């Protein structure tokens, strides 16, 4: 076991503006000062007050301490000022430990005697642990002013344009050629721009002509390496040649796919996929001067047989239902488990739909379908009527039944996400680091994920995400360099068995297998030869220092620099 018997520890007792005064009395100060390795003990009124930190500089000089234990409030309170310490003082911020006496003792334990005992134990333990600390340096990495956007559709275009407009050189890598030809995505809008085709055309034109935007069409991603600030993106051009793009950050902007329900009776042409409703209106009423489609009078929408979780189908169905009812004088029934009105404006639209006479039926058991005289008969039990106690089945005969489509994550976006080191969820959608705190940030630093490849969403939302990603990426690459503490995991290459576990478990794609080298000074031929071997290596820029790999390593070759296994072990050994 490593010796902890080194280091000169200084203790600062923070009274937190008097709150801790009763607990941290003279007896306590004496106790603390008497702990092994403690060379100085000061008590300040309020450590966090302005100038509180500056006072230390002088004292450190006097006592020549090399590590510090603060007895006071929660470390969370002090941590921001630790960063300042790095700039102003000579003490490394990772050489400071905090005994959280305020939160964990003063506020949590009522009995005074018990609290005093606990405070002593807590401080003693912290002081013991302080012996394990090691200073941690800071590293910088150059960040080139360049972002790559990978994606085939309008969201990718939007993101690329957003960056280009901010004068950040951007490369748009897409496999479609020519870009902007396929306009099916216009159907993914929930409200959409006033003149969709015009809006679209303008966007495509700008993408093609923007001076900051380099367009790589018909290309495929072959390889992705490096770390934030210096990613190497290898693409295959239509000619089959490989080209490497060096970039600081990458935005993956892909869509989702949908497949019409075609099982059994749904294969009949009387069932229309939701996305085809507009086409149905065009083709099924040839020569109708009165704009009333003769081919169908009654239309049923059946939702929630698939994709129950997404609100976009409800919005689209309601919009079409209103139009069919109002503009084409059809009888319209919407059958669903729930009307989902979470998207903007859908609540009002739903009310509108009811006003114009669209009938909504809420079901628990899926409706049963059969053909009756060329129409489709739907037998359904209305749950809302059941609440009133009328337990009977409604039979609705419709000329057309509109079904929502099954949403799928596209194989291509899955492949791309995997190549970029973005984890996929169970359905194959790309996952972001934390949906609440970083909704477009992938777990790999410098990689962003937006659009339908995350989950099926209306185009409005996807475009907003694109904007968010542009903001984030802009912020990252606007600085010339990215500074970070080396508070990361570290591999001892000599112990690594190359089992790949760490690389497999790391959620941040921060571990690669790398070639290590060292001079072999024992070479018998008298020449110092380079000895090389493969082992796992942590890319400090990518590492978040959470230590998942550390616990996974079967040879204990990895340790977390700012919280070593040894430190935890010292903590546990009372």
């Amino acid at each position, binding site marked *: 076991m490593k010796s902890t018997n080194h280091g000169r520890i200084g203790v600062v007792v923070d009274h937190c503006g008097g709150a801790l005064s009763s607990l941290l009395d003279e007896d306590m100060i004496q106790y603390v000062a008497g702990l092994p390795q403690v060379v100085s003990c000061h008590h300040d009124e309020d450590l966090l007050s302005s100038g509180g930190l500056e006072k230390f500089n002088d004292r450190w000089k006097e006592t020549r301490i090399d590590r510090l234990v603060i007895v006071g409030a929660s470390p969370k309170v002090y941590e921001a000022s630790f960063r300042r310490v790095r700039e102003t003082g000579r003490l490394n911020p990772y050489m400071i430990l905090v005994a959280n006496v*305020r*939160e964990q003792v003063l506020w*949590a*334990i009522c009995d005074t005697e018990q609290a005093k005992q606990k405070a002593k134990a807590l401080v003693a333990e912290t002081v013991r642990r302080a012996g394990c600390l090691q200073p941690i340096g800071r590293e910088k990495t150059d960040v080139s002013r360049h972002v790559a956007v990978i994606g085939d559709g309008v969201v990718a275009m939007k993101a690329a344009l957003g960056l280009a407009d901010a004068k950040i050189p951007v490369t748009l890598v897409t496999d479609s050629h020519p870009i902007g030809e396929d306009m099916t995505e216009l159907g993914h809008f929930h409200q959409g721009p006033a003149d969709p085709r015009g809006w679209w055309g303008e966007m495509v034109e700008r993408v093609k002509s923007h001076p900051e935007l380099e367009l790589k069409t018909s290309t495929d991603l072959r390889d992705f390496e490096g770390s934030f600030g210096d990613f190497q993106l290898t693409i295959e051009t239509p000619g089959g040649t490989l080209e490497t793009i060096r970039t600081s950050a990458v935005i993956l902007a892909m869509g989702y796919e949908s497949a019409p329900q075609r099982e059994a009776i749904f294969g009949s042409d009387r069932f229309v996929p939701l996305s085809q409703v507009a086409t149905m209106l065009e083709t099924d009423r040839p020569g109708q001067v009165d704009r009333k489609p003769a081919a169908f009078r009654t239309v049923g929408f059946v939702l929630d047989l698939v994709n129950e979780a997404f609100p976009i189908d409800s919005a689209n169905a309601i919009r079409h239902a209103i139009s069919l009812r109002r503009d084409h004088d059809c009888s319209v029934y919407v059958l669903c488990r729930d009307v989902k009105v979470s998207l903007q404006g859908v609540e009002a639209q739903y009310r509108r739909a009811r006003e114009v006479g669209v009938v909504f039926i809420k079901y628990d058991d899926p409706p049963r379908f059969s053909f009756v005289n060329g129409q489709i008969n739907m037998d359904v039990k209305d749950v809302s009527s059941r609440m009133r106690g009328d337990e009977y089945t409604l039979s609705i005969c419709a000329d057309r039944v509109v079904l929502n489509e099954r949403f799928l994550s596209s194989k291509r976006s899955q492949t791309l996400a995997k190549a970029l080191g973005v984890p996929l969820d169970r359905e194959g959608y790309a996952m972001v680091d934390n949906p609440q705190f970083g909704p477009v940030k992938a777990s790999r630093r410098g990689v962003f994920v937006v659009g339908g490849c995350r989950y099926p969403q209306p185009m409005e939302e996807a475009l907003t995400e694109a904007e968010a990603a542009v903001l984030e990426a802009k912020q990252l690459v606007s600085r010339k360099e990215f500074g970070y503490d080396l508070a990361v995991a570290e591999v001892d290459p000599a112990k690594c068995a190359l089992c790949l576990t760490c690389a497999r*478990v790391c*959620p*941040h794609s921060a571990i690669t297998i790398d070639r290590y080298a060292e001079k072999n000074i024992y070479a018998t031929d008298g020449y110092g030869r380079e000895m090389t071997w493969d082992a796992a290596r942590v890319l400090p820029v990518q590492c978040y220092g959470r230590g998942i790999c550390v*616990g996974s390593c079967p040879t204990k070759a990895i340790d977390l620099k700012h*919280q070593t296994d040894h430190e*935890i072990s010292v903590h546990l050994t009372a």
Partner: protein
Amino acid sequence: MTSFVPRIVAFCCDKSAYVAADRAGRLGSSLPASLEIIRVPCAGRVDVIHVLQAIEQGADGVLVFACHEDNCHSLTGNRVVQVRIDRVHRLMEEIGLERERLELRHVASTNGAKFAQIVERKFQELETLGPSPVR
């Protein structure tokens, strides 16, 4: 018989449970004096060996606190630790230790009261269970 005070070691994720623990006191909940809080950057930092070490060093119970499902700040940390805890549970069964002595709990950073409640319940549970046989 002298009264038995269970010793609990709680591994607290810095992003959630550690903050919740801070908050517990602020809300006026009390925590047992025998609670030892170990702050980890992510529940995924906690390994089988740490838990075993805690028990071997005399803890009557071990609580591992992780972020809620799908809300881990390291994406998979809470799932990784789950399988490690499962492994320790199997080992405990082989050793002959009650599985109640170790539990993985999920708590949000804002939920100080829940943190205090979980610790309190575990404390009571351990009081009934008695001291760890390997203490």
